[in-house]
């Protein structure tokens, strides 16, 4: 396989974009990425577009072709990718594969989502699935993991809340974050209960947003930029769905992270900065453990220690995470990778992590039989 690098990034502020269509959000991010990379549309060999909800909410489909032609990309293969929360990072994985395999030299990935739609309920497992028909909603799945974590390891509500406090503090430094106000532990604990023990401020908000990346064979990347960021490994795994499922440790999460480290020839100690899927406070704590940042069961204590805050030993979700940015599903996985790229290029402004040379972007998505349907882990370095 060939080495692949990121040569361009484009993003728009996450928030409410009621006056813009999904295509308008997506095309702006794609244009920003092409301009950032100095890449001509005619040089792009393949495009991947990520979105989760538009077929359901707007009766929009095969949107990638619409988005990419608005920025001059036509005739080449375009694929539309849906993989729940990892739609964007799954599209990234496919773009990486298309170049690493030697078939294409330049690929574009764009992800976009519009979630401020009246009557949008909580995300579930799909309408025909038993879990959904019983009444399962995504926060409930994470809440049951949280309860179990508290039961087995003595994790406290305060430790969970520390994740939201930290990420909002980070978000206050990120111009594209939807929520930039600082929170206290008390704010988090006293906000309305959604699914015990997760309160409203323990759950990521919805959002409209778009993000895009240009990937290029590393051997040709310096045509576009003097500081390409190398993809050291790109992993996409799906769930095991085995019964009895293990809520803790989350096998799919651990397996995805382990594989990414193996393929990169790196370990947790080599990571300077991380973005992970903090859709709920408990999720970040679980991912600390899967990513090897602490032993199993120690995630709550790590959250409280300050090690994962900006200025700490290994900052996590310095973008503000999903808890500050919101979670426009198709854009999320792409935006996480953009944050790592910006950090490694030392272009992250006030939220820059000192001497960040290696970073990891992690995402999980979908629910099936108590397991995740997908987990993506991408390791990047200067």
């Amino acid at each position, binding site marked *: 396989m060939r080495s692949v690098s990121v040569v361009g990034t484009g993003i728009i502020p996450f928030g409410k974009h009621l006056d813009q269509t999904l295509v308008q959000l997506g095309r702006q991010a794609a244009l920003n990425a092409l301009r950032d990379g100095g890449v001509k549309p005619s040089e792009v060999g393949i495009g991947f577009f990520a979105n989760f909800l538009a077929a359901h909410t707007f009766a929009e489909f095969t949107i990638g072709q619409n988005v990419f032609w608005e920025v001059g990309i036509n005739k080449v293969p375009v694929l539309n990718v849906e993989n729940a929360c990892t739609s964007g990072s799954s599209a990234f994985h496919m773009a990486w594969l298309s170049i690493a395999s030697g078939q294409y030299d330049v690929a574009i990935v764009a992800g976009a989502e519009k979630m401020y739609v009246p009557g949008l*309920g*909580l995300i*579930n497992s799909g*309408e025909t699935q*038993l*879990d*959904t*028909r*019983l*009444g*399962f*909603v995504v*926060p*409930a799945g994470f*809440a*049951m*993991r*949280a*309860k*179990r974590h508290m*039961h087995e390891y003595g994790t406290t509500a305060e430790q969970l809340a520390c994740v939201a406090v930290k990420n909002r503090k980070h978000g206050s430094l990120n111009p594209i974050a939807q929520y930039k106000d600082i929170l206290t532990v008390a704010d988090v604990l006293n906000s*309305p*209960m*959604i*699914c*015990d023990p*997760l309160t409203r401020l323990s759950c990521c908000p919805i959002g409209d947003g778009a993000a895009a990346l240009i990937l290029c064979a590393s051997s040709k990347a310096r045509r576009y930029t003097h500081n390409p960021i190398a993809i050291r490994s790109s992993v996409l795994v799906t769930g095991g769905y085995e*019964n*009895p*499922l293990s*809520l803790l440790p989350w096998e799919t999460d651990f397996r995805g992270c382990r594989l990414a480290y193996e393929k990169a020839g790196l370990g947790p100690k080599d990571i300077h900065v991380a973005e992970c899927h903090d859709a709920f406070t408990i999720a970040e704590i679980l991912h600390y453990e899967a990513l090897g940042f602490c032993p199993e069961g120690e995630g709550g204590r790590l959250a409280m220690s300050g090690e994962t805050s900006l200025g700490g030993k290994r900052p996590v979700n310095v973008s503000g995470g999903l808890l500050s940015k919101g979670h426009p599903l198709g854009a999320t996985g792409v935006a996480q990778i953009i944050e790592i790229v910006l950090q490694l290029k030392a272009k992250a402004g006030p939220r820059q992590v000192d001497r960040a040379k290696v970073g990891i972007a992690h995402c999980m998505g979908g629910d099936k*039989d*108590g397991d995740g349907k997908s987990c993506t882990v991408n390791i990047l370095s200067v």
Partner: protein
Amino acid sequence: MKEKEVQRGPEPILNGIFTLPPYDKEGPRLIGALCARCTRRFFPPPFVCPYCLDEIEEVYLSSQGTLHSFTVVRVKAPYGLPLPYCLGYVDLKDDGLRVLALIDPTRIEDLRIGMEVALCVKEFGDDGKGNPALRYMFSPKTEKLS
């Protein structure tokens, strides 16, 4: 001549996952599946055994279990479920299966991880079209504390 409309009770949320009333003294049962080749059990019944691709046979699962974890959902209920409602994972006695289930919402204060629970089937929420629906639920076996 117009046929007389047959009075129908609430329908199950999915067919073939639990037995329907009226019940004998054994009460309701969850319908799982067994692969004769690998002896694995499943719930809900799969298409074929995903490990062997052999045909599976349907079996009744245990109506008793222990509560592995649970939560109380307090907002945005789907299917007209009355808020708050409870969800949990139940380890079925002898089956080696951990199943997602509704948990009796009248017992929220009593719920503890590890407690013994028993199966019931109740009219609870709707089928997505506003018709009342039957759902399975586990309830603590101990008497109500309060």
